[in-house]
Structure formats: structure tokens, C-alpha cells
């Protein structure tokens, strides 16, 4: 089972520029979480702070009792072995073949024999569908393949926590759908805590158990997926609908005058009903995700603290059971 990641009061600035402040959230053990947010809101910075690559000025990131911000470097290096991080463009070592790239963590951290390493690496290569490309150099393959190779390398040490930085960027919709399925299958197999940073709405709608969103230097919300999907906060609704009307502008955010002018002329854009698409299931033949039961208990326990719309959506989801077909759910505010 994965490890819980607790973030408390994290604040990050580069020089005078504040990226986000006072971010607190808990990634529940073994569950899949997605962090949304417009470009440039510091999602990748957040990911790198979790793993201790960047040091926020305030706050803590607790993993197994180790604070990834302030603990001694030695402890941080030790804790990083629990992580698998998939970089935006793979971050493969350009001078090594895919096989050597994926074998790198094994050769550095274990004393396994070469035959054993070969077996594990080929298994991961098959998992991400790269069989036959293991002798190629990273420069010789496409961006999507590099991404998948990066994922294979992140998985080779059986991580307890998997972080994915924009797994969809540069992939076509079909490959993105396959990747979504791969991530869910992965969670079913190794039951790791997963955090995916993305702005892809398909991944956001189908993959996660929990969702959060960054905007205007703060964490707008984080909680069970239904909370965000039924939220009527303008930022969230604008982002999920992919509209121009709303607080998000071309360059980060709009000023008040522009917003007022927009509000005057936007009566033609009612918040139409938003569907809550059922979450992806693991592929046939795989064990069910252990996280599902845990999440159900956790979410039902906190049900009273959630907004009414989210509560209704969660009840609805669990009432339908896992095998229910796609159902549409009217969004709040549409009068139902």
C-alpha cells in the first residue's frame, strides 16, 4: 500500500515573485489524485517541492515522518527512493539506451544480478508498450515513447509514491486515453499513491479519486473528485468547460474591469449541466484497485463536511455501484 503525503502550509517564491502560498493538503495513501490549474500556476513547482528538488520558504511536506523541505539531505535522498517521478519530457539520460536508462535505478540502488535486472526492466518495458525499442537512444524515439520510457524508469524500483508531470503533453487524444488506462492499471497493480499534474480535462474527468486546482497563488480546492466536478466556483467551472468567459485570462488572470464587462455580456452562457463521467476501471484480468474500498470508507466518513452538491454526487456514485453505465448528473445551479 502506498504512503500518505501530508503537505502543511507550503509557501513558495522565486525572488519577489510569489508562486503559491499556504498550500495544505493530504494525498491519501494509495489513491490517485490530480492537480489541475492553468499554465504557469506552479503545478510543476509543486511537484518538485514534494520530492525536495525545490525548497519552499515555508511549510512542510511529510512522508513517513521525513520533512522533504527541512530534513537533512541524507534523509531526503533516502526517502526519494520511495518515489517515482515521471518528468514532462521523460528526462532520460541522452547518452544511454532505453534499457540502460530504465535499469539505472536498479544498478545504483540494488545489488541484483544482471539477469535479474534484465528480467525486471523487460517487464516494465512491456508494461509501457516499448518492447523492441530497448536498444534505441532517447534521441531516436518520439516524444510519446520518451514519456513512456520515463514512466517505466520511474516504476522500476516499485515506488510507493508515483508523481506524473503532465503525462499528456505532446500526446494525441488516443494515446492520452491509453495512458489514462495505464495509470489506473498501474494503481491496481502496485497500489501506490499517485499524483498527476495536468491540464487535460479527459484525464481529470476519468482517472482520479481526488482532485485539486491551483489558481491565483493558492490552492482553490482539494478533495474527492466529486467536490471539484460539482463546484460552482467560477474558476473551476471556467476551467472544466474550457471557456474564455471567467476569471482566467490569457496571461494568468483578468482585472476587475474586464470581468465586470464580461459579466454584463455573458448572460448567453448559462452553466449547462455538467456530466460526472464514471471513473476508469482497471483492465480486465487485473485485480480490483485496493484504493477504491479505502476511499469509499474515507469519503463516506467525511460526507457531512462536503458541500451539498458534492454529497449528492457521491451518494449517487456509490448508489449506482461500480458497474453502472454512464449517467449524466445535472450541475448545481441548473435548477434541479
Amino acid at each position, binding site marked *: 500500500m502506498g504512503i500518505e503525503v501530508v503537505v502543511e502550509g507550503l509557501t513558495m517564491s522565486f525572488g519577489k515573485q510569489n508562486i503559491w502560498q499556504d498550500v495544505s493538503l493530504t494525498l491519501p495513501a494509495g489513491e490517485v489524485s490530480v492537480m489541475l490549474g492553468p499554465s504557469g500556476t506552479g503545478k510543476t513547482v509543486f511537484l*518538485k517541492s514534494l*520530492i525536495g*528538488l525545490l525548497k519552499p520558504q515555508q511549510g512542510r511536506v511529510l512522508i513517513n515522518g521525513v520533512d522533504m523541505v527541512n530534513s537533512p539531505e541524507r534523509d531526503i*535522498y*533516502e526517502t*526519494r*527512493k520511495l*518515489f517515482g*517521478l515521471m*518528468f*514532462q*519530457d521523460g*528526462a*532520460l*539520460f*541522452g547518452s544511454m539506451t532505453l534499457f540502460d536508462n530504465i535499469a*539505472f*535505478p536498479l544498478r*545504483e*540502488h540494488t545489488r541484483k544480478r544482471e539477469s535479474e535486472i534484465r528480467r525486471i526492466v523487460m517487464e516494465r518495458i512491456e508494461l509501457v508498450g516499448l518492447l523492441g525499442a530497448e536498444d534505441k537512444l532517447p534521441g531516436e524515439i518520439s516524444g510519446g515513447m520518451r514519456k513512456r520510457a*520515463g514512466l517505466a*524508469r520511474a516504476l522500476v*524500483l516499485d515506488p510507493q509514491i508515483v508523481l506524473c508531470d503532465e503525462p499528456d503533453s505532446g500526446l494525441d487524444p488516443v494515446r492520452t486515453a491509453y495512458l489514462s488506462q495505464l495509470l489506473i492499471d498501474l494503481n491496481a497493480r502496485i497500489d501506490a499513491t499517485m499524483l498527476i499534474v495536468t491540464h487535460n480535462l479527459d484525464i481529470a474527468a476519468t482517472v482520479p479519486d481526488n482532485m485539486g486546482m491551483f489558481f491565483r497563488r493558492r490552492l482553490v480546492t482539494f478533495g474527492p473528485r466529486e467536490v471539484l466536478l460539482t463546484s460552482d466556483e467560477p474558476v473551476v467551472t471556467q476551467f472544466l468547460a474550457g471557456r474564455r468567459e471567467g476569471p482566467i485570462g490569457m496571461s494568468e488572470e483578468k482585472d476587475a474591469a474586464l470581468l465586470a464587462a464580461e459579466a454584463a455580456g455573458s448572460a448567453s452562457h448559462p452553466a449547462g449541466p455538467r456530466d460526472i463521467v464514471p471513473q476508469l476501471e482497471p483492465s480486465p484480468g487485473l485485480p480490483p484497485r485496493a484504493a477504491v474500498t479505502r476511499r469509499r470508507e474515507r469519503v463516506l466518513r467525511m460526507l457531512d463536511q462536503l458541500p451539498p452538491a458534492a454529497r449528492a454526487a457521491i451518494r449517487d456514485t456509490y448508489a449506482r455501484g461500480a458497474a453502472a453505465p454512464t449517467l449524466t448528473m445535472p450541475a448545481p445551479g441548473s435548477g434541479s
Partner: protein
Amino acid sequence: MIAGALRQTGRLFALAAEVSRAVFRRPFQFREFVEQFWFVASVTILPAALVSIPFGAVIALQVGSLTQQLGAQSFTGGASVLAVIQQASPLIVALLIAGAGGSAICADLGSRKIREELDAMEVMGVSPVQRLVVPRVLATMAVAVLLNGMVSVVGTLGGYFFNIVLQGGTPGAYLSSFSALAQLPDLYISELKALVFGFIAGIVAAYRGLNPRGGPKGVGDAVNQSVVITFMLLFFVNMVLTGIYLQIVPPKGG
């Protein structure tokens, strides 16, 4: 501005300290060390030899002409050999190590940094300093020491040849003044300088390579800066070491 310069200096020293500590941490990256040693040696040996012949010649000619005017031709050998071994040789070595080896190291680390390879390495719990920087710094130090021996020999031979053949000096006077003025500590300080210069070249190249400023152009700038910074440090450190040496080691002729 000043605070920025001080911060950079501080971080450079911090990296130097970290590398010194990491040298003793297991596992030692022997393979990487050998590869880097071979690389640095292969790009510096030939230019070093080719530079040291004319350099030895120039010093021999200049010193020879001066001593001739002073009527001290018989001391030409000792003077020019000391100049080659103590000053010219370590500096030639350092300039080549920094210019040929250090720039390549800086570019290599810098491009790995902007491709996030170094971040990936850290994420996998492997320290880039221990894995990449330590073998490179040790390689530049080892190559510097060995290369310094070669440059000293070639430079001295070059000086000897020009003094005897072109200036009509006598081999006997050259060799006897050599043994009258030169002593073993001259060779020790020469090798010590080479070792220190090799360390500086390696550390500065690694430091600039690990901290490029934004994108491929940043890597180019970093390489440029690493060479310039190394040169400035080298001449300053050379002055300090020479000053200390002349104070604490009594001259043989005196």
C-alpha cells in the same frame, strides 16, 4: 550586485567543500573517472606539447638575451629552466585543462541540467555531485599533475635546444647553472600548483555547468564564463602560491 557576487562565491566554495567530502563516499565511480581522465587527457596532451615547445623557446631566448647583456650567460640555463618549471608549465597546463577539458565538462553538465537529467538523477536518490562531479574533478586534477610533468620536460628541452643551437650557449654551462640554481622543491611546487589548478578548473567548470541560466543559450554563456572565471582564479592563486613559496623555501644559490 556585490551581494550577488558574494553569493556566487559562497556557493562555489560550498560546491568545493561538498566535492571534497563526496570524494570519500562509497561507491567510487571508477568507470566514470577513467572515462573522464581519458577524455581530458586526449584533448590536452597534443596542444600542451605543441604550446610548451615555443614557450620554452621564448623564455630561453628572452632570458638568454638579457643575461648576455648583463654578462651572465652562464646562468641562462638555470634561469630559464626555473621559469619554465615553476611558472610556465603549471599555467600552460591549467589554461589547457580549463580551456579544453573544463569547457567540455561545463557544456556536458549544463546540457544535462537543462534536459532535467540531473533533476531526474536526484529524484532517483543519486547525487549528481558524487556520481558526475567528483570523477570529473579528480580526472582534471590527475591529468593536470601528469601533464605538468610532460610540459616541464618538453619545455625544458625546447629551451635547451634554442639556447644551444640558436644562441651559441654551451651545454656544459647550461647544465651546471641548472644544477647550481634549481632544486627539488621547485618541482614539488610546480606539481602542487598543477594539482590545485586542476582542482580549480574542475570545480569552476562543474559549478557553472550545474547552474546554467535558462535554456541552451545559458549553457553557452556558462561555458564562456567558466573559462574566464577559471583563468582569473588561476592567475590570482598562482601569485599567492608563488609568493608563499619564495618566502618559505630558501633559494639554493643564496
